[in-house]
């Protein structure tokens, strides 16, 4: 044998091999470190994502409220004119009780009137309209303060910044602090975030319209894609002959699952809105569009679930004289159902987070009322997030994060349900 010189003596050979092994082990450790580094990077990004969302979003779950005793002046509000009336003047007058010196000039009075949210007059109006006999009485109302004061209270506006670069000037800070001294400012849980529809004012904006819109869209999506998806999957898995047509269908379905979502939006815009003349921004159209994207997911999940049912079940049923249809619908489908349901929920969760196709059919409109039917214009959760993320008002930053947290919690619940169903009902054969 022709060995290199170092290997000709036993000692030299051992030494060389040791060196080699050390080097090889080092490179193994290096590879492992790279792997751990890669995973840690992914986790770090997820952590930063969640932390940044919660740290900006949690502040929108509470809201600063101002409690005011308002004298409903019959000179401003008369029963005949309801629901019209000078409710904003009434509120301004209530504030002037605390700061009589602000009433001297118009501009200051205006600024003081801007302390409670612009929606305060409507809250008061609804109260009075519900019970007109209270005109002339003093009513205690609790209204959100407008966004700059809300941010001041939450510490998002730094009192140390020079006055001209602050959104609330010293005079306004003094008013707010005085009201706080009086115990009229309170921080409450912000139920308005889910019970109010969208608004131009961050302190009043809520997700009610978006939640209902998303609900309608998902319902339509489910009603369309669930039966169609299961029917297609059963046919392809159990009945379809192996020929070019079924091959074509298969390629189609696999490809549809990978078509960019925005293309489905284009399809919906051209076909549903353009050719069929369906209404813009309607959850019905949104749900139909989403169902086209959810269907491939359901088909693929259903086929996997059907495949997992062992052939012995089919053979046993056929053996006792069941027809092919009876085997599939009476035995295979019930056994595959937990898997189908899991896949469907996961598909619907994806649909809930889908944004781009909904933008194209106009579900990003500014709509201040919740949709009553699937044909009314509305937004959906992800498009509402997009609208708020685009809004210039500072108060919408934390609202956006809060809306994202709401969306993520829905997704967690849906996926959790899917995992629960899988663990609880799925059988291993």
């Amino acid at each position, binding site marked *: 044998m022709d060995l290199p010189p170092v290997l000709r003596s036993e000692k030299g050979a051992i030494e060389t091999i040791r060196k080699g092994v050390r080097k*090889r082990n080092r490179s*193994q450790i*290096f*590879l*492992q470190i790279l*792997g*751990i580094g*890669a*995973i840690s*990077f*992914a*986790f770090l*990004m*997820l952590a930063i*994502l969640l932390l940044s*969302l919660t740290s900006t979003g949690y502040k929108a779950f509470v809201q600063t409220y101002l409690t005011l005793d308002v004298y409903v002046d019959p000179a401003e509000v008369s029963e005949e004119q309801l629901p019209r009336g000078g409710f904003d003047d009434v509120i301004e007058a209530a504030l002037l009780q605390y700061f009589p010196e602000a009433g001297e000039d118009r501009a200051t009075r205006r600024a003081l009137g801007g302390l409670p949210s612009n929606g305060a007059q409507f809250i008061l109006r609804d109260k009075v309209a519900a019970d007109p006999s209270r005109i002339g009485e003093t009513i205690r109302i609790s209204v959100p303060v407008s966004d700059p004061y809300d941010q001041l209270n939450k510490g998002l506006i730094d009192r140390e910044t020079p006055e001209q670069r602050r959104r609330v000037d010293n005079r306004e800070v003094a008013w707010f602090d005085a009201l706080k001294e009086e115990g009229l400012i309170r921080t409450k849980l912000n139920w308005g975030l889910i019970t109010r529809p969208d608004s131009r004012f961050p302190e009043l904006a809520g997700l009610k319209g978006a939640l209902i819109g998303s609900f309608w869209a998902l319902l339509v999506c489910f009603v369309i894609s669930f039966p169609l998806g*299961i029917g*297609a999957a059963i*046919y*392809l898995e159990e009945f379809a002959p192996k020929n070019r047509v*079924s091959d074509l*269908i298969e390629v*189609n379905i*696999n*490809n*549809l699952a*990978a*078509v*960019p*979502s*925005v*293309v*489905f939006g*284009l*399809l919906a815009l*051209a*076909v549903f809105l*353009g050719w*069929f003349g369906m209404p813009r921004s309607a959850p019905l159209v949104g749900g139909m569009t989403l169902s*086209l994207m959810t*269907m491939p997911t359901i*088909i693929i999940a259903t086929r996997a679930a059907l495949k997992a049912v062992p052939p012995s079940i089919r053979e046993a049923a056929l053996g006792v004289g069941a*027809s*092919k*249809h009876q085997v599939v619908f009476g035995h295979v489908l019930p056994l595959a159902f937990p898997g189908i349901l899991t896949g469907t929920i996961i598909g619907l969760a994806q649909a*809930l*987070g889908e*944004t*781009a196709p909904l*933008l*194209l059919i106009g579900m*990003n409109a500014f709509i201040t009322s919740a949709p009553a039917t699937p044909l009314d214009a509305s937004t959906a959760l*992800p498009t509402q*997030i*997009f609208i708020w*993320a685009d809004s210039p008002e500072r108060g919408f*930053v934390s609202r956006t*994060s809060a809306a994202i947290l709401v*969306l*993520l919690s829905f997704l967690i619940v849906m996926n959790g349900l899917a995992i629960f169903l899988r663990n609880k009902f799925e059988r291993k054969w």
Partner: protein
Amino acid sequence: MALTAFTVLFAVSIAGYLWNRRAASVLREGGARLHSLSGFHGLYSFLTAAIPAVVVVLFWLILQGPIIDWLVMSGLPAGTLDGLSKGARQLTLAEIKSIAGGRIFGTPEPWKLEAAERLNSLRQVGSVLMVIVAAALSGLLVLLARQKVSDIFRARHKVERTLSGLMIFCATVAIFVTFGIVASLLFETVRFFERVPVGEFLFGLNWEPQIPLREDQVAAEGAFGWIPVILGTIVITILALLLSIPVGLMSAIYLNEFAPKRVRAVAKPILEILAGVPTVVYGFFAILVVAPALRSFGASLGIPVSPNTAMAAGGVMGIMLIPFISSFAEDALSAVPQSLREGSLGLGSTRAEMVTKVLFPAAIPGIVGGILLAVSRAIGETMIVVMAAGLIAKLTVNPLESVTTVTVQIVTLLIGDTSFDNPKTLAAFALGMMLFLVTLVINIFAIRIVRKYREIYD
């Protein structure tokens, strides 16, 4: 009303099911030997009644609107529509509709009020008629089905054939959808190319779709060369892949070959969370955290960084693609047969050598397929770039500058009010067509690679 119609027709069909089943059971009790079980006789009635009625109601719902519109418009007093353009006619119709909906602005002409009243009454008549038709049709079909119940009637065969037909219909919906996508994109794209020459679109270096709305407006003329747009898409895609391929591959190798079972059990679901986050959330993450961080980092080095860099969008897209690539790589790695692992370990290689010299080369086709699918996702990804990338098409490959992408242009061209007769909106469809074709080719290619590769070791 649609809900009422469906409720009625399903109620009638279910009644038909019960009636036929009962009839069959009575025959059986009378000693007759029936070909089919009673349940199939019931199902036969249900299917014969429900399917045609559902189809009729669906068509009714689609056609009712246009037909009523036409009736209202043709019923207007003679002369009111003379000389009006198509747009003006539509405007009149819209006004009549809003009056019918109770939203009256100003004082409309009396003929409009009359037309609105007629519209409302037509709508009411139409809805009531629809419910009646649905009930009558399903009832008639149930009666017909009832006649069929006999000992020799092969209800099971009929039911099974109908079910097969329904399932085939479901399966072909996928083809209809693809056909719909191609047809709608093609239709609008052709109209676009009637206005803008194909050569200009494919090879033009300028993308300025903001065309003047009025004749006298001073604005850009409108240029539709897609090169800068596709270049921006490529830049962002490459940035995303530069981040996601190494990270995704390394984590897949680690999870599949080195990680202890417990680490794997925890790490995989966490990676899946990353995959389940909606893209609009990633988009917000990009503008909330990543873009400002990049800017301040750039400022500390003295490099000017624009607010919507390709880097921020590409980086966040890369994070989104990590779990995607990692799961495909893991599939490819675990598809490599155990014998290859054992063989190489048996020859004395370390685990690292086994992975890099045996497993990895064997898994490459599968990994490449996964990467190709990731490329097609990156090209088609919309929300991240809409929120984090720029709007203006610049011919640059500098990742610190703001670039735009195909999907961003599609969305910005179509957001807001759209009409189908100007090149601006049609351009979006042309871009969509290109996007569809490119991703289609990549997808088919990738799916084929992944599938073929799986078969080798099966």
